[in-house]
């Protein structure tokens, strides 16, 4: 499952992202999302930042550029992080490719 850096990826409507205390968790609410229906997923800080960055019209490359500027990191490194987490989320049907 390869991530297209020129594509836009958006959170599935069947996942609810919640912040409880200092934790950022993803709660699948529908069949086929996540590995089991009643499991919760905790994103670390990098995962959280990337999840929050998914937005309509924002391609992977755009997100990488924006985060690289914000966090003073290399764009390539950030893009790898984004591709890494999006690959996982796509496998779990927690995101979908827009369009």
């Amino acid at each position, binding site marked *: 499952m390869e991530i297209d850096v020129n594509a836009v990826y958006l959170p599935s409507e069947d996942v*609810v*992202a*919640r912040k*409880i*205390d200092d*934790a950022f*968790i993803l*709660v699948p*609410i*529908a*069949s086929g999302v*996540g*590995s*089991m*229906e*009643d*499991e*919760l*997923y*905790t*994103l*670390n800080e*990098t*995962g959280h930042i*990337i999840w929050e960055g998914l937005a309509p019209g924002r391609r992977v490359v755009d997100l990488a550029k924006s985060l690289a500027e914000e966090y003073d990191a290399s764009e390539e490194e950030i893009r790898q*992080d984004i591709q*890494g*987490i999006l690959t*996982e989320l796509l496998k779990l049907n927690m995101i979908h490719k827009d369009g």
Partner: protein
Amino acid sequence: MSLYMEAPQKLPDFWLWEERRKKQGLVSFTLELTPRCNNACRHCYINLPAGDGQARERELDFDGIKKIVDEAAELGAMWCLITGGEPLLREDFEDIYLYIKRKGIFVSVFTNATLISEKHVQLFKKYPPRALEITVYGVTEKTYGAVTGKPELFAAFMRGVRLLLDAGVPLSLKTVMIRSNVHEFQEIAAFCRAHSSEPFRFDPFIHLRFDRDEKRNQEIREERLSPEAIVALEHSDSARHDALQKNCEKLVFNEDMDNPEGFLFGCGAGISEFYVNHEGFFMLCASLYGSGLLYDLKNGTIKNALDDFVPKIRAMRTTKTEYMANCGRCRIINLCLWCPAHAFLEMGQLDACVDYFCSVAKERYKKMLL
């Protein structure tokens, strides 16, 4: 699991669940959608007829429920149990169910399954509940009817269960054991085990009604099993027997409890979880119902209830001699149905001792020693 995400966890093993419980943060709540039920079970503490217009009028509407769910989610609740009466009697059940799910809160549902339709099946298939718990009152029309007063609903119950099973919706089947169905215990247990992946559970403890209807309370008393029958049932079920024996040391204290201050609430009621009744009253638990023991969420917030109301209730104490000499120091209180809530339902006093409870606890203890 990866650089970005921890391995998924189920409740209640989810790390945040335990962490919040330790800090006494909110983790779960129960929503009682209605006291109305299409069954008329003899042992039920709450049921009113399905068509009871006055009861229906008093039920919290969808907007009132949304307000409670919104605040519970903000406060960090991760799980909600929907119960009744029969919650599927509510025409807005699906809206309520999905609203809670879309807040990222897991939902379990207690139902008698008689109203399950193809639409419900599709709902539960697409948006699975954490658990769908169905009480099996009997596996024959005669026994089902003896408990529920509605033998004609036995076919609807079987149909509902079948629809869910055929669609692959996992069920948790359980039963309540009373005089009207105890003769069918083995058959009911076999049915539950055959159709549910969850361990079989049964409840032989039934408590009195919230509305204190004396005629109905008398029926409940008549349905109660004797202490000897309860203990015999428990020990005929190997899983339950083993659990009781295994936890013997935790359940029975070596010496009398030390409670000179006379505190009544040794349980966790109102800590990390709460109950909302169909009228929108906050309760510390499913059984603590009565004047002065409720907080109106229509005119207040869950936060205020948790911060101000709960501590006041939990701080309640007694100096009553009978309580202090018996339940207040009892070594086998953990084998007993006694708690301030159940005592209140039985006797109208939070600190009352209840002979029936005491007899059951002593019988359970006697059996453990054998």
